[in-house]
């Protein structure tokens, strides 16, 4: 069984739980997808910033289309709302394991998401950890 971790540009930290979720020895790969970057039209400074982040991580940098590069039985990746990342995950031939990070707050199911302050009123206490304050 082969395993890979897709270290995509939404989760450039070795502290992300995706690393603990994958088996020892899983290859950690950041795929540099020139077509996607061209579509996003990232400037040089954005590209350099990301490369600097990668430089401080223990990952391989592989250019290409992630759907081709991430060729393993199991592919682990950090959860992301980005449609590109989600789209690649759907195209992978291996078994995809999406790993969530700790959320900032607990969002009740009945939260009205149409305006920020409705969201904030429902999530404020958990975001501020108010119920965890001793004696509080």
């Amino acid at each position, binding site marked *: 069984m*082969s395993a*890979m971790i897709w270290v995509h*540009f*939404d*989760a*450039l*930290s*070795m*502290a*992300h739980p995706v690393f603990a979720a994958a088996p020892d020895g899983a*290859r950690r*790969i950041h795929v*540099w997808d*020139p077509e996607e*970057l*061209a579509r*996003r*039209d*990232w*400037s*040089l*400074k*954005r*590209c*350099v*910033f*990301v*490369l*600097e*982040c*990668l*430089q*401080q*991580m223990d990952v*391989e*940098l*592989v*250019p290409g289309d992630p759907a081709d590069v991430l060729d*393993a039985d199991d592919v682990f990746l950090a959860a992301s*709302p*980005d*449609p590109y990342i*989600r789209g690649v995950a759907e195209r992978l031939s291996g078994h995809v394991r999406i790993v969530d*990070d*700790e*959320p*900032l*707050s607990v*969002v009740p199911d009945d939260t009205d*998401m149409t305006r*920020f302050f409705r*969201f*904030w009123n429902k*999530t*404020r206490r958990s*975001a*501020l*950890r*108010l119920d965890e*304050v001793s004696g509080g």
Partner: protein
Amino acid sequence: MASTETDRQGASVLSACADRRDLAVLARALSPHLGADDQLVSPTQGGREAAMDRMASIDPVAYARTRNHLDGAVTLLGPYIRHGVVALPDVRDTALATVGHPTDAEKLVQQLAWRDYWRRLYGDYGMRIWDDLEDYKTGFGPEDYADTLPDDIKAGATGVAAIDAFVEELVTTGCLHNHARLYLAAYVCHFRRVKWQAGARFFLRHLLDGDPASNNLSWQWVASTFSNKPYYFNLENLQRFADGVVDTRYEHNVVLAGSYEDLHLRLFPNLDPPEPRKPARPRRGSRR
């Protein structure tokens, strides 16, 4: 899976870069879309170490007091948060650890929650965040707005000193204070009547923290396609928050001058005149 020769090169290519110049060369080799005229590297350094330095100087109390000022005590963590170098709960916990009671860090945590909120909406909307989520509330329809960003804005050569300074900072550093983003976005959408999408694309090209979730939805908030009314500002507001940082003199920013009532009539002539503002009310710029 056995590593191929190419993969091993991939592993070592980053460590072979001794400095930022090497990284820029590597970025070019990997990314054919980068034009020869795109030569700027930001003074902001990527990586966990730089992020941790910034985490160490978070001051939530000063943040709450000064964050709307262009020289206020903001965290400058945007690019690190955007790329997940640090996670929102870590920033929150670092902030909480510096204060006596969690509510002393409320303003900063609330701003972190804006990001969380936009990201959750992005998960629901996907590529539809490029569409107007609601109608404009400006008295205009989408057809009244230009499709592309005028060259003078892109070049920072509008002749409006503060606006040109913001563009210059965005393009050279990839960083821009939240209030400057609001001013620039309002200028593009309302003073120049350009579609928010054109401005959003320009921001995403340059901002180190450029993220379609926070960016597009903030642009829509300014434009009024995801808010109840358009966000706009006047020179007096700019002077209050940007004095000493950019040139806010009247004679160099004439187009921005006027009362909110005057500007409302000028920018949104199809709408009913606004209710007069009471002088003592908090300024618009301090709302987000």
